[in-house]
């Protein structure tokens, strides 16, 4: 009986970890859907967003190290702090600017190239952004606090203690992350299904020539899609940054998004969510039930093995489009 209650607690926590994975996976799906490009830089985009947010919020001088080294000065901070909301809006603006530059400097020159070329370009982009983030804001681990509540949720602990005689430990940050992710997904789905720009985005994803012929500007759509991906990265960056500090290993969460995508399918927004939840819950429960039998630390590999099984038996994922090629 006790074990079932523990499992229930782990299940809930797994769901919420899954939401965090899904947040990163969403960014991948968006760009993949609209341009057929697997954006390797999505994780770094989240890191860069988080770094920029902290930098703006704390009034850090960008490129401080470089400026100091060149001019022999000692500037570090502007001496002000920016309110969280304003800092988030400014960071959003930076992400839009970044999307614009990526289109202008990289994508525009690669129109009509094979997807593998674009994929390689995003690898380059990932390393460039990681370096840029380092030079701009410094490599130290930063604390990100935008006023999201953290710590154990006492009300849930109280309620569950009443019911089961055992209080569940649920982080309030995880609850908020879930709510915010749900809103984000609802907004994205409404956007893609019902707005003119969303329709245009789906059209571009399907056929470039046809999209042009009905009057859709490819450039506009690409800037828009990368801006949205940047925005999703910002949200993911805020959540992960608040949870575990803004550090460069943040860009590695992109690795966890891969199995999520293989499960959910690269082209499905709901797939990213369900995939994230399955991986989140799966790895936690697997660790709880099977972990002790095999010496633990299963969380490191569970997601990848599951993804591998999917690749063998259902390569398009749970919700992805079935790829049929006529010969």
């Amino acid at each position: 009986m006790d074990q079932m209650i523990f499992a229930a607690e782990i299940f809930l926590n797994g769901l919420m970890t899954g939401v965090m994975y899904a947040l990163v996976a969403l960014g991948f799906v968006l760009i993949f859907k609209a341009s057929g490009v697997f954006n390797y830089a999505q994780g770094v985009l989240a890191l860069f967003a988080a770094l920029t947010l902290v930098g703006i919020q704390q009034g850090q001088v960008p490129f401080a190290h470089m400026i100091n080294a060149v001019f022999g000065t000692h500037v570090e901070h502007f001496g002000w702090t920016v309110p969280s909301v304003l800092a988030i809006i400014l960071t959003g603006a930076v992400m839009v600017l970044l999307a614009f530059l990526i289109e202008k400097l990289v994508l525009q020159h690669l129109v009509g190239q094979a997807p593998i070329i674009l994929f390689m370009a995003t690898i380059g982009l990932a390393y460039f952004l990681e370096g840029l983030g380092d030079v701009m804001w410094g490599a130290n681990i930063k604390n990100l606090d935008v006023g999201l509540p953290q710590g154990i949720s006492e009300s849930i602990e109280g309620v569950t203690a009443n019911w089961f005689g055992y209080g569940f430990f649920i982080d309030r940050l995880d609850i908020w992350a879930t709510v915010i992710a749900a809103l984000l997904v609802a907004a994205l789905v409404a956007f893609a299904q019902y707005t003119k720009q969303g329709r245009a985005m789906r059209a571009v994803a399907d056929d470039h020539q046809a999209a042009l012929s009905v009057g859709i500007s490819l450039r506009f759509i690409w800037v828009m899609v990368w801006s949205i991906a940047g925005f999703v990265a910002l949200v993911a960056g805020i959540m992960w940054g608040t949870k575990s500090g803004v550090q460069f290993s943040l860009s590695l969460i992109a690795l966890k998004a891969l199995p999520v995508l293989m499960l959910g399918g690269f082209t499905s927004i709901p797939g990213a969510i369900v995939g994230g939840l399955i991986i989140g819950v799966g790895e936690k429960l697997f660790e709880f039930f099977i972990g002790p039998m095999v010496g633990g630390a299963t969380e490191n590999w569970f997601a990848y093995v599951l993804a591998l099984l999917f690749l063998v038996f259902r390569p398009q994922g749970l919700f992805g489009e079935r790829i049929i090629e006529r010969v």
Partner: protein
Amino acid sequence: MNQQTEITADGRQIGGTLMEMKNITLRFGGVEAIKNISFDIREGEIRAIIGPNGAGKSSMLNVISGFYVPQEGEIWFKGARRGPMKPYEVARLGIARTFQNIALFDGMTVLDNIMTGRLNRMRAGFLSQALWWGAAEREEIENRERVERVIDFLEIQNIRKTPVGRLPYGLKKRVELARALAAEPQILLLDEPMAGMNVEEKEDMSRFVLDVNDEFGTTIALIEHDMGVVMDLSDRVVVMDYGRKIGDGTPDEVRNNQEVIDAYLGVAHD
């Protein structure tokens, strides 16, 4: 706009010059795909561009629709010179097209495909659209009405919810025409609308082209290499061969033009 308005034998009205191509030359590297060609398209007419394979017909259509930018020459539209434009800008001017190899959004339903033709007519704000409220609702209803009319007109009611990828070739062609029509274009460009069709499908398509012109008053420029179809369909015909214009006039004039006869019968070029 120098010509008089004319009434054709079957009672359609043909107005002044809507579009004029002046001395268009298009090169790909050293190859001249179009050599110094001029012609005009008048309001309300069905204008055909014909010629054997490789004559430069498709290149011409791509020039009109902005997919290619000619090295020399001028394009005039509604009495004003059109600068170099991107294809999507041309589409926004009111010039819709179809493709020889069909370019549809395979993942979307027939209805959604046709709705994309209305994208440029949607003005409502972004939030209003996402929340389905105010101006967006009115607009969507208006757009749907036009789209439904096109669907009725082309007799594709029964497949409106079918994903386009599953349709047979002939129907795909019709959906593509529907999408172009939904945009209420001032000029409709059709790139080989009958290519690859059987006789029955060709007859259907011919009828649709004529009806579109008649009922919506749409100016149509079409490319075709099947002489028979074109001659019955069009008001005036431009004939191209090896990138040059070798004939221009009514179907009867063109039919009796010696150069055109040579090109089609395959007289050796020197």
